[in-house]
Every structure is written in C-alpha cells, then in structure tokens.
C-alpha cells in the first residue's frame, strides 16, 4: 500500500461512520479517505506531468490517466502483492497505485537514473520488479501475449488456490480489435490460465469511438469466441471496481478461469498531452467535466460525512506537497551518462557484442 495511504489510516473518526455506512455499506471510512487521497494523488501527478511536458522536462509520448483515477484505485486495491501487472503506455496511475514511490515515476518521465526504468523507458515503459509491475508497453496489444505467458508460468509451477499468484493484463477499448488479443484469450481459455484481462473502456481509441471500431461494442462480451466470461463495471465507482476485480482474481486463482473485466470511464483530455482533442464538441467537454470522478468522489465523501471540508483540503494540501516533492526529486536526479549506453545490452555477456558509437570504425577497441 502506498505510503500516502498509511498516513490517513490513523485519522479515522467514529462519529462519521454511520452516515458513511449507508452510502458505502461495509467500507471503513479510513479506506474511503485513502481512496480519495490516492485518486487525488494520481490526478495531481498527471496534471503536473502535463505541466512538466509543456516545460520540456518530459519528452516523447506522454499519456495521462485523467478520468481513470477511480478505476485504477479500485482495481489495484484488489491485487495481492504477489500478483503481476502488465499495462499499456497509459500507466502512471497504475504504478502509483501499486505502491511505487511516485518520485521514481516522475524521475522516469524526466529520463533520470533514479527513474523506475533508470531513464531507459520513459512514460510508456514503467517497470518495477518489487511491485511486480512487469511493464508498460507502447505497442498496442503488445503486452497481452507476454501477460498471458506470465500466467502460463504460474500454471506451469503449480495448481490454483486462494493464495496463488495471478496476472492482471490491462488494455484499452480499441485494443480489443487487434489479433494479439484474440490469440492470447484463446490460449488463456484452452490452457485455463490465472489471468484477468481488464479492458479500460474510456470510449475512445485516439479519436475513434468504440462502436465505430468494434463489431461487438459491449466489450466484456467479446470473450464469447473463447467461452470466456466477462463483466462490465462502472469505472467511476471505486468500490465497484475493487469488488469486480476481487471476484475476477478469485476465478483466476481458485478456478484457473481467465476472464474479461470491462471498466467504463471517460478520458478527460486528449489522447496524449499534445492532443488538443479538437474532435470533441464544447458540450462533450462540459459533460466530461461534470463526470470528473475525483471531484465527484470528494463531494460524495463530504456529503456523507466521511470527510469534512477541512480534512479534504488537508488531504489535497498533503498531496500537493507530495507531488512537488516528486518533481523536485526528479529534477534534482542525475541524467544517465552516455558511457552507459551499452550497460544493458545483453543479460548474458557474449563475444563480439557491438559497442561502437556512430562514426567509430568497425572493431573499435
């Protein structure tokens, strides 16, 4: 659990519990506050990343999770530490929710040696062994076969059970149209692999709506071609997301039944930080603003007395401090030095491995 969460866990007040209980049956208020804090952390992290991109601190492609905060926090809370996660290039929030120190994530975006991937991967390629985040991947659908293979390795090593490992493979709605998805789901189905395919349906590819791209726009039904079950959940409902993922993981662990979990949400900005999203109408933009899951959750917590305005403001302030610290950490971290160019060329050293720089003669000593 991210350090962010433990902090508030102590601040619980019994007085508010009753109101909260009706709105969020069975949810300890501490957890709800932790959810809010984490959603806010992802929100502000992404907004600062966008800023830093404008200030050229970050380069390449940069895709944000704005609008997917509730989905991410809910889904990730259902994972056990020993579960493996494979994601797309739109994964900053997942890395945060897996408990990776946000400063190391921002440092990766800055391309520094203290980054989770030591500056080699950038925004699209976050990786952390301890957190079992086995990578963000930039090729659409590219993460799906390896995620499926990770589940194969788990099955290869032993039978299922309540405490066994499982794999979560996250992908986007438009990615359900690519062949690798079909081939992978088929393998998972015939081999009964412990994996959950989470489709983040933010209703758009880059600018293409789901129903224009998918013959079956009810994406959770697309497992039918493999007799694979699927469910759809409201991605703006953090608790519903956690519950759905918990059940999908149970199926994977105990019954070795792979499944599809579709979480619906709305991408609040462009496809990447450089996309002005001209293809959206003013009305659409307004509608999205009203759907903002972070603002909505904050308001609901206050209305139900889980938080009072002061506490909410304090959380926001704490998050602000934390995100500032991330930026400072990243900005003060060292750049990788060019002489490290071949440091990660091969895992097993090999004779005659090339190490020439552009313009070097062949066989430079």
């Amino acid at each position, binding site marked *: 659990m991210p350090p962010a969460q433990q902090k508030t866990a102590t601040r619980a007040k019994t007085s508010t519990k009753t109101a909260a209980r009706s709105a969020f049956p069975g949810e300890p208020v501490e957890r709800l506050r932790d959810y809010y804090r984490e959603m806010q952390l992802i929100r502000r992290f992404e907004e600062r990343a966008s800023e830093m991109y404008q200030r050229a601190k970050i380069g*390449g492609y940069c895709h944000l999770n704005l609008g997917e905060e509730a989905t991410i926090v809910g889904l990730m809370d259902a994972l056990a530490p020993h579960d493996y996660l494979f994601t797309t290039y739109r994964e900053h929030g997942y890395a945060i929710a897996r408990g990776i120190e946000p400063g190391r994530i921002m440092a990766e975006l800055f391309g520094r040696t203290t980054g989770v991937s030591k500056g*080699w991967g950038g925004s699209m390629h976050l990786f952390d062994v301890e957190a079992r985040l086995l990578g963000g991947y930039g090729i659409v659908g590219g993460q799906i076969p390896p995620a499926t293979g990770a589940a194969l390795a788990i099955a290869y090593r032993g039978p299922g059970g309540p405490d066994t490992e499982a794999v979560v493979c996250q992908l986007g709605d438009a990615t359900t149209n*690519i062949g690798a998805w079909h081939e992978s789901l088929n393998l998972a189905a015939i081999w009964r692999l412990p994996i959950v395919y989470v489709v983040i349906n933010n209703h758009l590819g*880059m*600018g293409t709506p789901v129903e224009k791209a998918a013959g079956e726009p009810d994406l959770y039904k697309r497992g039918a071609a493999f007799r694979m079950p699927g469910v759809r959940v409201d991605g703006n409902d953090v608790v519903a997301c956690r519950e759905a993922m918990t059940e999908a993981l149970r199926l994977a662990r105990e019954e070795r039944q792979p499944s599809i979990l579709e979480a619906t949400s709305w991408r609040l900005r462009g496809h990447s930080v450089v996309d002005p999203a001209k*293809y959206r109408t003013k009305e659409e933009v307004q509608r999205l603003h009203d759907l903002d899951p972070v603002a909505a959750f904050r308001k609901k917590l206050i209305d139900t007395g889980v938080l009072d305005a002061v506490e909410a403001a304090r959380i926001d302030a704490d998050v602000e401090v934390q995100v500032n610290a991330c930026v400072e950490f990243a900005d003060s971290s060292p750049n990788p030095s060019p002489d490290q160019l071949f440091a990660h*060329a091969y895992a097993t050293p090999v004779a005659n491995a090339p190490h020439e720089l*552009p*313009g070097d003669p062949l066989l430079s000593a």
Partner: protein
Amino acid sequence: MAVITYRQALHDTLRAELARDPGVFLMGEEIGVFEGSYKITAGLLTEFGPERVRDTPIAEEGFVGAAIGAAMLGLRPVVEIMTINFSILAMDQIVNHAAKIHTMFGGQSRVPIVIRTPGGGGQQLAATHSQNLEVWYAHVPGLKVVMPSTPADAKGLLAASIRDDDPVMFIEHLALYNTKGEVPDGDYVTEIGKAAVTKAGTDITIVSYSRMAAVALDVARRLEEDEGISVEVVDLRSLRPLDRSTILQSVRKTGKAVVLEEDWLSYGVGAEIAATIQEGAFDYLDAPVRRVAAAEIPLPYAKPLELAALPDATALLKVIHETLDATRFRG
C-alpha cells in the same frame, strides 16, 4: 515553384490523387476524424467522405491485407501505418502476400497498393517507437521501396507510387514533416528506382537517404565553404530497386565514399552500399567505405543516451576527415 513543408507536399499530393482517380482511397488508423497522428490527412475526410478516407480499427495485419484484396480488384488503396514500428504487425501481409501475389500467380494479378509510414528516431519515443526498419523491406523482391528526403521528392515519388501497379513501401521520416523546400507546381511525378545527385563534388562522395540525406547535404555545403572540400552527395531516394550506377559513377569520380544512415550499423542499408561500391568501383577506391550509422542498442528514452546512439553531422564530419586523411588528402 512554391516553398512548402514535406507534410504539406504529402497532403497536397494525396488530395490531388484522390481528386484525379476515383479508384484511389485512403485507409488507416485515425486518418479521418483525428486527421492523422501527424496530420498528413487533415481535412481530407471532410472533402472526400468516409468511403475514400477510411478510419480503421487498430488491426494492421487486417487492414493492410484488406487493402491488398481491394487492390487485387483494381482499386488503388493508399494505406497509412502510423509508424514503421507498427508495420511489423502487417509484415506477413506485406511480405508474404503483397510482395508475392503478382509473381507467385504467374502474373495474373496486380497489387497497386501504397503503404505510407514514417520511421526515424530522435524524438525520445524510446526503443519500440524509434526504429528504422527500411532495410527489411528493401531486402524483399516484389516490393518497391522509396524514401524521399525533400518535399519535392515527397510529392513526385508519392504520385509515382500511387500510379504504380506494384506494392510500394513509401517510407517517410518523423523529423522531416516540418522541413521546407521548393516543390514544382501541378502534376509532378518522380521516377521510382533512380537516385539523385543532390550536390556535385569531386573529392568525396556521401551516400545517404531520407532525413540523413538532408544532414549530408548540409555537411557537404559546410565543408565546401569552410574547408574548400568538394563533396558529392547521392540521395538514394529508392532502396528497391537500388540505383547502383549512379552511386558507382560518383565514386569512380571521387575515389572515396562515406555512407550516412540512421538505421543500426550491422546489416543496415549502408552495408549494401559499401558492398556495392567495393565491387563496382574497386580499382577507383583510395580508402575503405566507412559507414556512419546508429549504435546497435534498443534506443533509450533519456535524451543524453538517445543523442549518443544516433548518427549526426559531427560523426559524419569526423569520418569524412578520417577518410580524407587516410588518403593523405589536403583540401
């Protein structure tokens, strides 16, 4: 002659060809509503409608193959693959189908398809989004592979590719889209299979293509001004077929050659150029043909590492001087 960008030249040519021939249509991811990842197709959906500017799902193998089938029935699809890195997913359709169908069926069918896709690194897009894979396609009989380095060639070669009855890989470069140059007005077609001598010279030959051909030209001009070295620049333009005679003619004159390429050194395009020169101009060569290419490592994201891995003017200058020194040349 108007001075426009490489992007504009591509856009205008697509527009002109769509207007000229009702059998021409565009296909690709996000080329319509989104107007293209790099905006080459901006405005074309509005002008020509969704049948002729067709947004596809993310399914490179599927829609490239579909374009092949449409071409077999006589249409002229121009497919955009967002970057060459994703063309790998369509490679079975390109190499095992588009490149084979005419020959394998005894000449009974034609596949007039153009696949437009940009390659290139240098934008911190990291290992999977920065590759230069042209040599793979250049190796494959049945394909034609062109790589324009100027807005004029972008126009002339795109028109030629669309009007050609064979599958053409039309490979662009991310870093060229905003570059400007003079472009002939009206209908303008550049012959496929012919290299261009973009600068005449007598002391040494630089062979290059795509973005690196622009870098080479720039370096050549500087060397002439600053050091009085007369450099000839050959822009390949077409990788398949390869115009060997133009390369050899130049090297037989200068006696020295350097290749500048953005792809990885081993088994890259430059290997064929060097092999060709040493066989075709052996008795004329005063020094070995050196290649300036990318370091052989998946391209890192961090800027200092990316810069170290990619070839540039400085590396080219160094190698040109080393080559001249090897022949005790005094400029």
